[in-house]
């Protein structure tokens, strides 16, 4: 078959199908890429980015950021002396690897590649960032090798949404390159989760840009948005300008440094030692409790006492009850019950029935619950049970 006939048939097929879904699909495949120019040579790229050629088609850019500096208004030095937090147990700051990738797409699967990986470690009084930039697909195996040497080993990964995206993607790339995944099984702190816990109810979303703005006080200037990354690299690959590359590198650098700054800022929000954003105190307290530190939960709630909503107050009362501090718990429930909280009324009913052994007080509360939620089976059972107890009490009296 000659070249012309296949192209011709494809053209015919796509032409005659115009308007049908397949025609649209063929049309949607994209526009012609035009003539390819020769991509820039490695040494040009390295010079432009201030990096060095680590292997064919792999440029490494290294930067040192003093821990004495600020990112937004967060002092980076905080990473080395984190207060106790529920989402990070034993750790050694020297093992942290802050990692973020820029990829050819967000679709996931085996057809997505990381063309830029940024990974930072704490090195003395600096945060040392290494960025591995590919100038061609062919550089990938060597780059993965270098990344393993810099970021593998005794490592505690720190990422933002890396558990879902960056690390599975890297695992697939190592697998495709025929290598072992050096990050498999390593401790991995995905900061997205504690951020969500603390701020889900406070912020419209928890994207990293939102975190930078609301928690770090960091504003990017002339940032190339993440969504533009795949296209920008493809443009470069097809022989486009080098001019866009510094913006790609800078975007990734900011991502990595924000990760480092986020740790102390988020720790402060959890431990209540300052910060510019007020977290959801009840959610933070629950996180402390789940981590087996109810005292810390209690302290966080008491500190925020003035601003607690119903969920926060119920959590506080729950912690008091747990400590058998019935007086404090009942005061909160009484207050909430006064304001109509069904859960508080129920808590009080249970308290009066089982702790204070005062069935008549419990019965009043049970009746009130029955009126608020008519027909609910637990309320009906409680009313019946208390009726019985009251009758027995009268008989024995």
């Amino acid at each position, binding site marked *: 078959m000659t070249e012309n006939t296949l192209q011709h048939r494809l053209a015919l097929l796509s032409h005659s199908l115009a308007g049908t879904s397949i025609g649209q699909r063929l049309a949607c495949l994209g526009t012609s890429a035009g003539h390819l120019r020769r991509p820039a040579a490695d040494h040009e790229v390295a010079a432009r980015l201030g990096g060095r050629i680590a292997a064919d088609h792999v440029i490494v850019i290294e930067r040192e950021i003093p821990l004495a500096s600020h990112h937004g208004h967060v002092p980076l030095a905080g990473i080395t002396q984190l207060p106790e937090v529920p989402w990070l147990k034993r750790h050694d700051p020297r093992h942290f690897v802050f990692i973020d990738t820029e990829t050819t*797409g967000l679709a996931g699967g085996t057809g997505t590649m990381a063309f830029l990986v940024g990974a930072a470690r704490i090195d003395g009084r600096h945060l040392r960032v290494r960025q591995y930039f590919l100038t061609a*697909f062919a550089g990938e195996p060597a780059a993965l090798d270098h990344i393993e040497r810099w970021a593998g080993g005794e490592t505690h990964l720190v990422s933002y949404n890396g558990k879902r995206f960056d690390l599975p993607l890297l695992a697939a790339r190592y697998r*495709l390159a025929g290598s072992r995944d050096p990050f498999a099984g390593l401790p991995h702190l995905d900061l997205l989760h504690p951020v969500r816990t603390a701020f889900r109810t406070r912020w419209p979303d928890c994207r990293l840009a939102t975190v930078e703005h609301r928690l770090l006080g960091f504003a990017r200037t002339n940032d190339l948005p993440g969504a533009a990354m795949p296209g920008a690299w493809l443009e470069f690959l097809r022989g486009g300008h080098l001019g866009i590359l510094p913006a790609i590198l800078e975007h990734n650098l900011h991502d990595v440094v924000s990760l480092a700054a986020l740790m102390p800022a988020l720790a402060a929000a959890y431990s209540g030692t300052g910060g510019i954003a007020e977290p959801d105190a009840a959610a933070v307290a629950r996180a402390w409790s789940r981590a087996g530190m109810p005292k810390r939960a209690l302290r966080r709630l008491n500190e925020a006492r003035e601003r607690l909503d119903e969920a926060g107050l119920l959590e506080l009362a729950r912690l008091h009850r747990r400590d058998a501090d019935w007086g404090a718990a009942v005061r909160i429930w009484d207050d909430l019950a006064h304001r109509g909280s069904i859960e508080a009324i129920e808590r009080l009913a249970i308290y009066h029935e089982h702790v204070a052994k005062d069935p008549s007080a419990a019965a009043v509360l049970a009746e009130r619950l029955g009126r608020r939620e008519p027909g609910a089976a637990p309320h009906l059972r409680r009313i019946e049970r208390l009726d019985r107890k009251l009758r027995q009490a009268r008989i024995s009296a």
Partner: protein
Amino acid sequence: MQAPALRRREPLVERPSDAAALADELRRRHAKRITGELLLPAQPARHAPFPPVLDARLKSVLERRGIHAFYSHQRQVWDLVAAGRHTVVATPTASGKTLCYNLPVLQAALGSRAKALYLFPTKALAQDQVAEILEFNRIGELGVRACTFDGDTPGDARRAVRTHGDVVVSNPDMLHQGILPHHTKWAQFFESLAFVVIDEIHTYRGVFGSHVANVIRRLRRVCRFYGSDPVFVLCSATIANPGELASALLGEDAAVVSESGAPQGEKHLLLWNPPVIDPDLGLRASARSQSMRIARTALKRGLKTIVFANTRLMVEVLTKYLKDVFDSDPREPARVAAYRGGYLPGERRGTERSLREGSLDCVVATNALELGVDIGALDVCILNGYPGTIAGTWQRLGRAGRRDRPALGVLVASSEPLDQYIVRNPEFFLGASPEHARIDPDQLLILMDHVRCAAFELPFVAGERFGGENLEEMLAYLADQGIVHREGSRWHWIADSYPAATVSLRSVAEGNFVVIDTTGGAKEVIAEVDYGAAPMTLHEGAIHLIQARPYQVEKLDWVGRKAFVTRTRADYYTEAIDYTKLKILDEFERERGPGGACARGEVHLVRRVAGYKKIRYYSHENVGYGEVRLPDQEMHTSALWWQVSPERLARAFASRWEALDGFLGAAHALHQIAALLTMCERADLGRAVGDGNATWSGVVGADGRGSARSFEGEPVDLDRPGGEFVPTVFLYDNTPGGIGLTAPLYALRHEVAERTRALVAGCDCANGCPACVGPILASEAARGSPKRAALGVLRLLA
């Protein structure tokens, strides 16, 4: 004969007997209705010893189930698989096919922890299969882990399946969209993958089969990446060419095992034509009334019976009639049940169980029961109407048949031309091999879809092959589109997309329409209509029938694929008027005969729905028209066409109008016979009558008479002076690009024309009827007999 068994409801079982006795009685009492019959004698079992290497644990499970030897075909498969041969098993229903593949797979899992992938066309079959292996596992304490992996598998269970599953049971769609694009997560699985089992391969034909063949190409490509080369074991129900289909799916030869060693009771088959009740109009008693009668007789004799109907509606109607007779007492457990798609899975499982346990006496089903769902063996199978294919007929008939007792199958014909052809030519049906299942994995659009998916999964390397087309050219095309990027000798996926998500295996043109009932302000989805049928049945103003209930289409959202309808009490139904314009682009081959010529080539086809007619029920008079504005449907495909030389035409017909009637009638019948002789569902082939230069197309009016229209819908005067008249019958491949139906059709062109002529000539009607050239409502006096005209055309073509 056995002593009468004790039945639950004695009075309703009047004369217990076996299926052979029932066949005798039907022969005696209704000799005239039986147009053909066949007796397949009983077959004794042929055994073969267990292979010496059979794992002792497996042997003990088999022995505890009362199995002390293989059937001959099971041993044959074992030996072939052991020798590393791809194998296709094509033995009848209930011949123990499952053991053919389960035993080698379990043996390898026990011995070397080898893994296996099973693919079934439906989730239900996959679940049955896992249950079967788990049962084996339980009895033998084998410790083999079998799990399903499909759209229903919860996220947290998926990792366990990937890493621990020994036998993973899935479907082609999941392999295509969920497994292959994420193959790195399955690395361990692919590295030890030793067997791929694909059951029910006869369902993988046409467009679907062509897609599946490409998914298998991708699967094997990924396996090569992980250094494995699994042996494929395929299973098929009755088709003519299991070996050919298997090798087309695999791209490599497969050994065929088709001689069953399982025992089989004798089987009777009767072809049944309902009696004629109006010879003029060619009207016969309904198939339904005949099926009912036979089913009642069978049930009263205590025979387990299955009735197949071709539509869901007919299933419901037959079930109701049978329940009225046999399930009139609500205190008794039901004896009759319906089984069809659209029922909830739990309900279907329940019916299957009752059938297996023998607590149901009769099931009325659609082809949903054609596949290998385990329902045990039954005595009598009644087909209410010809299923459309010979293979489908045998697959359904296979539901009746026991190892130790006689079975009876009855094919009851409807008044459709195919049905009538079948029962009037019993030697054709009984002698014919079942259809060839055909696929065309290199159909360009389908192949292109999978080249994209494959490029996403692994970069292509120069010199690699994928399908029969020039791969580098296809990749160059994708590179032009910005989908892949060439770097040295490799093509890398570069687009930010997940191609498998946009490729559906089940049809080429995707996007079903949903029908939304908005009566009384509600919004309820009541039906789905496939893309191809939407322009004809969902245009605004159309009366859309669901379970015989009329709905009117108020609004059609073409882009959003939604039709909004309301309940109506209209006393009419609607028939879309569409014009198909075909232009011959290229002629591949042509044969000139004495009367005319037959040719094959590529055509450009435009279909436009221009309007619709409103037709009153019963009187069938035309009570109005409406206009329709819809996008034209364009398609580039391959076609076969017949033309008659103008001189012969002028000699044979008094007028051009008569000739046009003849061409339209001939096209109606040719379409049916062509579908019968090739593979294929009737909808896979399209037909049209026109002049080949797209100046006019012929349409049949409500009165059964032809007229010629321009593409704008204007009448064309065929007698206009100087006008050329080259009427042409087209049969085209109804899939964009074609899936290879017309080449075999061209090879069969003489047989198609001759059999069509014989069908029309042999029809009992006077001037035409639904069973030959299509329904005729007007009288002969108006313009001669359409049937005679069609015969005139067919004589010139044959």
